[in-house]
């Protein structure tokens, strides 16, 4: 059983379980699935700086902080309790492309040559982690949600603005992965 659970789970199992989070949160207390709003709560709680956008009672939304706290603990349980001992299987074309950027470590979920404290002091690592994080935070709030709030919760509720947002998420992702990332990786 444990060995079975340790293997990577197929998409249909993960998809069903993630989809079920939508009704579970609604049934538990009328909560709408969404994660990026936590970043706003962090601002409202720590540095509101008299900015209108951060003037609200973030404590009312504290359920969401518990929710992401759970994600953190769950990831810890999965990583240390049900570790996948095999290297991650990646598409050969991507392996080839990454080899050009000097990346060949597949022992972790993320490329260690890129996502690590040492890499933070390289130009590409700095752009990727500090720049990328900034874009994620700025963009998700500007769009009014991220993958969970728009692509999953919004689409589940058949909201067309969420479909627009989801298409733009994908467009931005395609642009970055295929055109901009290759330039950054060679820096």
């Amino acid at each position, binding site marked *: 059983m444990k060995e079975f659970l340790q293997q990577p789970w197929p998409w249909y199992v993960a998809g069903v379980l993630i989809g079920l989070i939508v009704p579970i949160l609604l049934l*538990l*207390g009328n909560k709408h699935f969404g994660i990026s709003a936590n970043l706003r709560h962090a601002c409202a709680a720590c540095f509101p700086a008299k900015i209108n956008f951060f003037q609200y009672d973030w404590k009312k939304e504290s359920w969401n902080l518990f929710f992401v706290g759970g994600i953190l*603990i769950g990831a810890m349980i999965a990583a240390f309790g049900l570790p996948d001992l095999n290297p991650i299987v990646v598409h050969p074309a991507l392996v080839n492309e990454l080899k050009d950027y000097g990346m060949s470590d597949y022992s972790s*979920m993320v*490329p260690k040559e890129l*996502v690590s404290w040492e890499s933070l002091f390289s130009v590409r690592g700095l752009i990727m982690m500090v720049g*990328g994080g900034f874009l994620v*935070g700025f963009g998700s709030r500007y769009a009014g949600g991220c993958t969970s709030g728009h692509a999953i919760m919004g689409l589940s509720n058949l909201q067309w*603005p969420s479909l*627009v947002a989801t298409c733009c998420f994908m467009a931005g992702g395609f642009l970055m992965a295929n055109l901009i990332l290759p330039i950054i990786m060679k820096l």
Partner: protein
Amino acid sequence: MHPSQPEIVTDFEVRSLDTMCINESEQQHPWWYNFKYLIVGVLFGIVFVKAEIISWFRMQEMFRLQNFHMYGVIGTAVVVGAISVALIKKFKIKTIHGEEIHFTAKKFNKGQIIGGLIFGLGWALTGACPGPIFAQIGMGITVMIVVLLSAIAGTWVYGYLREKLPH
């Protein structure tokens, strides 16, 4: 009408544009009721890691059309979510505390396009959307704390510039 009333209404509109700062539940529960959301989060975190949704490699494959995995995950989640929402609406199912479940329509604004594109760029660059950032920190990739802090900074700058940005 009380002079401060319109401001509150605007605030609600501003907040309703957002994913979820609108949970004005009439019911007051003790704080430890929030642990039920922690448990849901734990399950979510396990799925995130075991289905490799938090993998930078999987995101790169998705944006290069090299792997169906992420499309399958998101597609299935949307179908399951949509069926659940439809059932809740049709049978007017209530929460476990007997409260009516309400939905808010999302209003269109330019942010969904401009912000969406910006988010997409960041998503492909870091290989993580906000949920997976928390999961990666949990699984011991501590440098993702930098990404998280930077994302909070990005959110703050958006809040600071909000009134000047096209919406």
